[in-house]
């Protein structure tokens, strides 16, 4: 089915009015994942912008039409491991067990539980919406924040300007866990995103499925809310965020980038990058080139076999 027909026939599982900012990439990812997962789903959303926007409930009200739980910032994958076991033992493998967690909850605080669940092959779909920082508590840096970014804990100063360390490239680390499925996606590449959600859900019935979704944050990154999709598109075109997937057959590059745009075109118009030095820009470019080369090489191994 065409992705538009899928969306037309998939009701929204989230409350229609939640307090995520105008143009929030995370809200778009959240709604699409749960539309595709449908009502036979249990979802965990740890503390972060999505939980804080009201989807895990507010006072005595629920924020979703399906069962939703807010685990701790650090234990989402452990919590869902237990839940997944109970459902399997009860013969209810039909129920989708899904996490929608931020980069802080996945790549930093929750990384031990995430890595453990992936390595054990727990049956679930774990979606990380990566907005490159602890946005809900005021835009602090995380391990996935791009080098040179201005955040509230890496301000622009004379001695140090922006984040000093390179971004930790989490999806490739996750792919080395031997999970049933691992993929990157962005909201700009909507048909690809929808297909990967479907594939991830199918894989979650036999093992661990991980989806890392680039999720631009207009408020924390300082860009106009109508540019969210364009920012994600440029992340792919500049190789900041290559699109690939790894399943039982190996690695596949989903967007073969014959003419990458320079990362200077990606950072353009994003406030958090407004004071990048030449050295920082060169370092970001190198990181983008390296990750595209790495993923291309992995994809070529599969083709040789």
């Amino acid at each position, binding site marked *: 089915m065409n*992705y*538009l027909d899928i*969306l*037309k026939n998939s009701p*929204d599982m989230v*409350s*229609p*009015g*939640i*307090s*995520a900012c*105008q*143009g*929030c*990439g995370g*809200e*778009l990812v959240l*709604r699409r994942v749960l539309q595709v997962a449908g009502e036979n789903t249990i979802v965990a959303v740890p503390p972060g912008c999505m939980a804080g926007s*009201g989807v*895990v*409930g*507010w*006072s*005595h*009200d*629920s*924020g979703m*039409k399906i069962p939703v739980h807010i685990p701790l910032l650090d234990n989402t994958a452990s919590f869902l491991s237990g839940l997944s076991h109970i459902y399997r033992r009860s013969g209810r493998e039909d129920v989708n067990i899904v996490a929608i967690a931020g980069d802080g909850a996945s790549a930093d605080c929750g990384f031990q539980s995430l890595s453990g669940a992936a390595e054990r092959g727990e049956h679930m779909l774990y979606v990380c919406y990566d907005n490159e920082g602890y946005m809900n508590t005021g835009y602090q840096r995380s391990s996935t924040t791009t080098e040179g970014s201005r955040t509230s804990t890496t301000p622009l100063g004379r001695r140090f300007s922006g984040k000093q360390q390179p971004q930790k490239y989490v999806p490739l680390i996750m792919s080395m866990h031997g999970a049933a499925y691992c993929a990157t996606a962005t*909201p700009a590449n*909507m048909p690809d995103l929808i297909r990967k959600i479907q594939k991830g859900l199918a894989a979650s019935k036999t093992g661990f499925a991980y989806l890392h979704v680039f999720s631009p944050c207009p408020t924390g990154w300082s860009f*106009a*809310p*109508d*540019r*969210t*999709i*364009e920012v994600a598109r440029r992340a792919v075109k500049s190789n900041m965020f290559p699109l690939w997937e790894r399943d039982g057959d190996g690695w596949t590059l989903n967007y073969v980038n014959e003419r990458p745009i320079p990362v200077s075109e990606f950072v353009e118009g994003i406030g958090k990058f407004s004071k990048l030095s030449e050295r920082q820009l060169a370092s970001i470019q190198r990181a983008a080139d390296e990750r595209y080369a790495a993923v291309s090489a992995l994809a070529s191994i599969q083709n040789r076999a």
Partner: protein
Amino acid sequence: MYDRHFVTPVGNRGMYVLDTSSWRTHRPVMDKATCVNCGICMGYCPVNSVRWSEGGGYYISYDYCKGCGICAAECPRGAISMEREGGEE
């Protein structure tokens, strides 16, 4: 004190729904004469405010639309324009 509220604290009263339509400074207006019903705006709306009707094609629901402008920026035909809200009378 330990009544049902504490057994199922969340969801026993209904759905949390915020009136996000009041956030808009601009509203997206779709020109159906220019629109080719490609559906791109529906796929990209973070609030699911672009809807589909069997008879009339794609349209915008203003109930929760936050006025982010993504639909207008992404429409390949330029069929959506952002028009200033009138504000409170």
